Structures are given as structure tokens and as C-alpha cells.
């Protein structure tokens, strides 16, 4: 998946920050905007950018939507533009992953109807974070220093395959802590609609192909664990 570039529509402030973040993580990305001045600005800032009229379906197809593009970001400053882009893209490619950004709760709802998979509201998020900071300052402090920001501890998902060593094993029989120094947070069943199964929840679960483990650990420990699972490296996505 890392080979196919991500398409970021609309070179806004938010887009700049996201593009930088994605770049440091090594994702290939292309910024698309209908305003050529903003395209130029993006190129000046060191991103690859193309001029593209998102209102034309042909232009979207040409950019690869419905073909090799897996994921797009709708980052225009106006919610109406983002909704239009989401609807157009969803119509062209039902399987496409669409992430949209909005600053209003009203637009969140509209984007969801339009077919966005994930909607991020920066103000709601930061507001929650502040509330969390007031309630549990220690937790936020720890997460800021570990999971977020410096990436010394990684959170990763690993998909169970037929050939995997853990296939058909019961959750209660796996002790990742003792064997690999990892924390198994939980499992998401093969059917993505299933609720998240918390690893110490009491109910036991037999792992089947398609299940996804959510684990937390140091990068080297995670690598060791993956080697142990004998999985081809391109099956595993890490950040």
C-alpha cells in the first residue's frame, strides 16, 4: 500500500501539517488543488503537487481515483468543497478510503452522509485532549512521551493469515508479554463491524484468518514478533 501515493486535496494549513507528518513517516503523497497559486506554494514547500479541477470526474479518474489510489484526504478550507469532493470520489470508487477534515459539527454529519470513512475535527479533538489533561494528567503525559510524538513505543496492527503461527490459537493461550515483551491490547474480528475485543475481557476468542491484533511495544520487539509469525514483510504495516 505504501507504493501507491496518497492524494491530498486542497493545500490548506491543515494539509501542510498532515503532509509533513505523512512525509516523515515515509508515505508517498501527491497534493492536488484547483488553485494553481496554492499548487506552486505546495511545490515550494517541498511536496509534489498537481493542478487538478476536482469538480470534473474525468480529472479525478485521471489522478487515479477508482484505480491505483487507495486513500484520499479532503482538506479544503470550505466544507462545501470537501463534501462535493467526497461525494464525487465515493461515486467513482466505492472501496476508496476517504479522510475528511472539518471544523464544524454540522459538516461532520454531512461528510458522513456523503461517504467519508473518517472525519477529523481538530477542535473537538484538542478540546477532548484538554479535558483529558485535566482529568488524567499522568495518562496524557505518558502517552505524549511514548505513543505520540517521539515514537519510541509503537502501536501496531497485525493481521492473522492462514500461514500465521497464531492461527487457530486461543486468546487465553497467548502470552505476548512473557515471550515478546509486547502488550496485546485487543483484537478486531474479521468482520470489521464486530466490536473491539479487549484482550483481558474474560470471553475467550479463537484467532481466525482476517482477525487483526492490536499490539503495543518497542519497535525491535515488534520486529521480532513479526519474524516469529513468519509473515512476508509486506503484509505487515507499521508506522
Amino acid at each position, binding site marked *: 500500500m505504501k507504493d501507491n501515493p*496518497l492524494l491530498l486535496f486542497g493545500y490548506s*494549513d*491543515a494539509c501542510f*501539517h*498532515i503532509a*509533513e*507528518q*505523512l512525509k516523515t*513517516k515515509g*508515505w508517498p503523497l501527491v497534493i492536488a488543488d484547483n488553485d494553481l497559486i496554492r499548487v506552486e506554494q505546495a511545490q515550494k514547500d517541498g511536496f509534489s503537487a498537481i493542478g487538478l479541477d476536482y469538480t470534473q470526474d474525468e480529472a479525478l479518474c485521471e489522478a487515479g481515483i477508482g484505480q491505483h489510489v487507495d486513500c484520499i484526504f479532503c482538506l479544503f478550507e470550505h466544507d462545501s468543497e470537501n463534501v462535493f469532493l467526497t461525494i464525487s470520489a465515493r461515486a467513482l470508487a466505492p472501496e476508496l478510503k476517504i*479522510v475528511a*477534515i472539518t*471544523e464544524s459539527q454540522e459538516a461532520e454529519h454531512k461528510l458522513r452522509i456523503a461517504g467519508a470513512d*473518517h472525519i*477529523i475535527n481538530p*477542535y*473537538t*479533538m*484538542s*478540546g*477532548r*485532549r*484538554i*479535558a*483529558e489533561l*485535566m*482529568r*488524567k*494528567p*499522568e*495518562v*496524557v*503525559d*505518558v502517552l505524549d*512521551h*511514548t*505513543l*505520540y510524538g517521539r515514537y519510541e*513505543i509503537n*502501536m*501496531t*496492527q497485525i493481521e492473522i493469515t492462514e500461514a500465521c503461527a497464531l492461527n487457530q490459537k486461543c486468546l487465553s493461550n497467548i502470552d505476548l*508479554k512473557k515471550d515478546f*515483551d509486547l*502488550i*496485546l*491490547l*485487543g483484537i*478486531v474480528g474479521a468482520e*470489521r463491524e464486530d466490536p*473491539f475485543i*479487549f*484482550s483481558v475481557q474474560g470471553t475467550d476468542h479463537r484467532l481466525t484468518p482476517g482477525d*487483526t491484533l*492490536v499490539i*503495543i511495544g*518497542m519497535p525491535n520487539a515488534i520486529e521480532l514478533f513479526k519474524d516469529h509469525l513468519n509473515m512476508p514483510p509486506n503484509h505487515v*504495516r*507499521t*508506522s
Partner: protein
Amino acid sequence: MNIVHVPVLKACYFLHNAKIYSRTKKTVYTILADPESRWRKPVDGGLSLLVIASVFLLIREVKQPLNSTFSQHFETFAVTVFIVEYLLRFWLHSSAHNTIIKQYEKAAQLNTPFRLRRAIQEVLKEKWRYITSPLSIIDLLAILPTYRPIRLLRIFMLFRLFKLFRYTRGINQFANILAEKRFELYILGIFFTFIVVSAATAIYLFEAQRPSSDIQSYFDAIYWALITLTTVGYGDIVPHSPEGRVVTIALIVSGIGVIAFATSIFVSAFSEKMQRLQHERIFQGISRLSDYTLICGYGRMGHTILEELSTSRQDVVIIDTDNTVIEEARQRGYLAITGDASNSHLLEQLNLAQKAKTVLCITENDINNVYITLTARSLSQDVHIISRANETASIKKLYLAGADHVVTPNQDMALVAAEYVGQPVAFEAIYSILSGQDELVIDAIKLFENSVFDGVELNAIDFKHHQLILFGVIQTEADNADEQYYFELTRSHFIFNPHDRFTLRGNDVMIVFGHQDNIAHFRKQARRLK
């Protein structure tokens, strides 16, 4: 030294040093006069009720002579309370022995002879100041109606109602508003008197000589002029001559003018004052809070924070420069003030140093946020400050200004977005845990000194049984520095996924994942002492 001086001074110093005396006085002050005391409401309310009940009985007595023993006893009781209250306030007003001691010490310092008479004069002067203060005159007059033989004294029963001034802030504020418009009311009074007197004189000149006229005396003329001027117009006295009617016409027209003038004065006085009153009431509300959260800037982020906090019953005070958003916040029932949060005077008024627990600087302008952070930090070293940085460059400045935590919406969003692309499943899981939308949460459990877990190795705790996952432990002392996964925090350090032989200490903080009920249960266990 005079022979009288010694015992008097001895008595004064005795009172001055007597703890029980000063303690009693302090208690009486708290109950009766301290505006901040929690006794204020019940005491004022009870006395107000007593006033109203006694006035009610006095009114009844006008037509139905007092015969039931109950009402007689009640009246005696009420008057006793009023007298005691009067005397207590008289006692509280100043302390006589202190005045005498002060005079004596002053004399000793200046090496002049001490004059007891002067000192007592001073004491009397202070007490006299109390007796002549308007409120205490009212108090005194309120006691008088009990003396029945003099009928005129009955009117003083009204003073009992005036006593309510003491007990209600609202009436006081009303009086203050009128007092502030003194100049306008003075002009109005002159204007009014001038018209009434000139109209009365005119009508008296024209009508008084006619035998059939209603106006027989100058008092009649004044009474008529007043009734006409105020547009009341009873019609019991009417002019009969054409001249008199001309005077009436002129008076009616000017009457409208006077009424309009009076109304405008009152309306403007109240509308000016209303905002200030509301402001004051909010400040009073804030002064009653403790450990509140001050939110500077009420925007989209503020909304989310308040929604999140609404469950935890946290006291919140909002400041914003925009009046419209403040109105909105007030309608939602929050204490909100229009003002500039970087104004240290305003923050001092809010008693930030003593009363605030957390300050959130979340305006949309980084310059403001830095300034507010700096102001708040300069007022209090202990308050927890969380600031918002809109630009990456501001983060460092906010920390320098004294923020404990800095939140950057744009960066947070970018982090989350990037995380989502790579691992949507893991992301959704952690996101829902962090946002606390599910009942699955990550939380901190603090161990006390001497807790049952103090000195216990981790393998002795069955986390699986509690359905919890230990994420790590925060320690303040670095005696586990050999631990493999060790992260420095600001004032402590964090050990990720510690091994089984890890030993817990008092004051450690465990970070665990789990269902919130399980966490609450586990926390209860962890809080038990050895």
C-alpha cells in the same frame, strides 16, 4: 498616674488579652455582620421573616385590638430580638478597650500625660457614629412601635419594613442606583417644585376668592397642582373659572414633560446599572467557588471542553472579549465574564492565585495565549496552565511563559490523520479508548505511601483476574533505572511494560487499560493501606 486610670487600663488590657472575649466577639461578628459568612443567608432570612410577621400583626391590631396572648408574646419576642440585635451591633461596631489602649500607648510613646477623659470621649464618638448611622436609626425606630400609648409611634412600624434594607442586597442596590443619579433627581426636584408652586399660586389667585370654588386654602392649591401635574387627576378639586382652566391646561402639558423626564432618569439609571449588577453578581458567584477552571476564550474548542467536563461537575469560569459568545455561555448557565484575560487586575479580582485550579488559554490568537499564560503564571506558581498553540513556533514560547501543557490542534490532527492511514484498526481502538467514548478506558491509579501494593512485586498482582492490562508505571524516584524501557517525563519517569520482578513503591502511578468499572474496583483495592 491618676488613681482611676489603673483599674480601667487593667480592665482594658485584660479584655485585650482574654481569648474567650475576642473569640466570642468574632463568632458574633460571623453570625451577624460578616458578608462572606455562610450564616448570612439563614440569619438574614430569619430576621426578615420576623420583621414581616411582626408588621403583619401590627397591621391586624389596627382594627382588631390585640387580645390573644400569642400575638402579645410574639411581639415581645420580636422586640427582644430586635433589641438584642441592636445592642450586639452596637457592641460590634468598635472595641472600646482597644481605643483606650491605643490612646494610652500613644500617650506613652509621645511622653504626654494620658487623659482618660479624652480616651472615653474617643470611645463615645465612635459609638455615636454607629448610633447616628442611617441603618441603626432605622433599627432603633423599629423598636419604638411597641410603646402603644403614643399613637403616632405606630407609623414607625414602617421602619420595621425598612429594617429589611439590612437583610437584602437587592433593596440596597436599588437605593444605590438612586443615589448615583443624585444630580438628575436634584434637577428634577427643583423643576417639579417650581411648577407645582407656580401653578398652585396661579390657581389660588384666580379661584380662592370665589365662594363656590373648590380651593379654599393654599394647601388645597398645592394638593390640586400635584394631583394634576402627576397626571393622576382625581377630579375632587376642579377649576371653575376660565382663568383657572387655562392654568390647568398649562399644568397638564408641563405634567407630561415632568413625568417623561422622571421616567427617563429612572430607566437610564437602571439600564446602566443592570449590566454592572449582573457583572457583580457573577463575581459574587465566582467568589464562592473554589478549585475552579478558568477558560480564556470560548470558541469551538471551549465548547468541546465544556461538554466533556459537564459530567464531572467541575466549576468553570469563562472569559472572552466577545460579548455575544459570553451571552451565549450565560444562557447555557455558565459563569461568564466579558473581559480581557491578559488583564492581571481582572485575574486578581477572580482570586486566581487562591481559588483557581486550572487555567486554559485557548483563544485563537497565539500572542494572546502567551500573554495570558504569562499573566496567570505571574499571579500563581501552582495553578495548572494548559495553553493552545496554533502555530508550531509558539509551543516553545508558551512553555517559556509558564504553561504546564501545550496543545496544538493542527499537529494533533496531523498525527491522528497519519496514524489512521497506516493502521486504521489500531487507530480506531486507541482513539476510542483515548476519547473515552466506550467504557474501555486508559486511566492512572495512584498508590499511596503504605498502600498494600507498596513494596510488592508485579507478579503478585493478578491483572488478568482484574481484567486489566498494565501499560506502565510512573515513578518519581529513579531506583529502577536498569529497567529496559525507561522514559523521562517532566518531573518523573515512566517505565513501559515493566517485567514481573518489578517492585512497586508508594506514590507510584500505574497506567492501566481496562473497563472503567474494573478500574474503579482495582483502584479501591490499591487505596487500601497496610
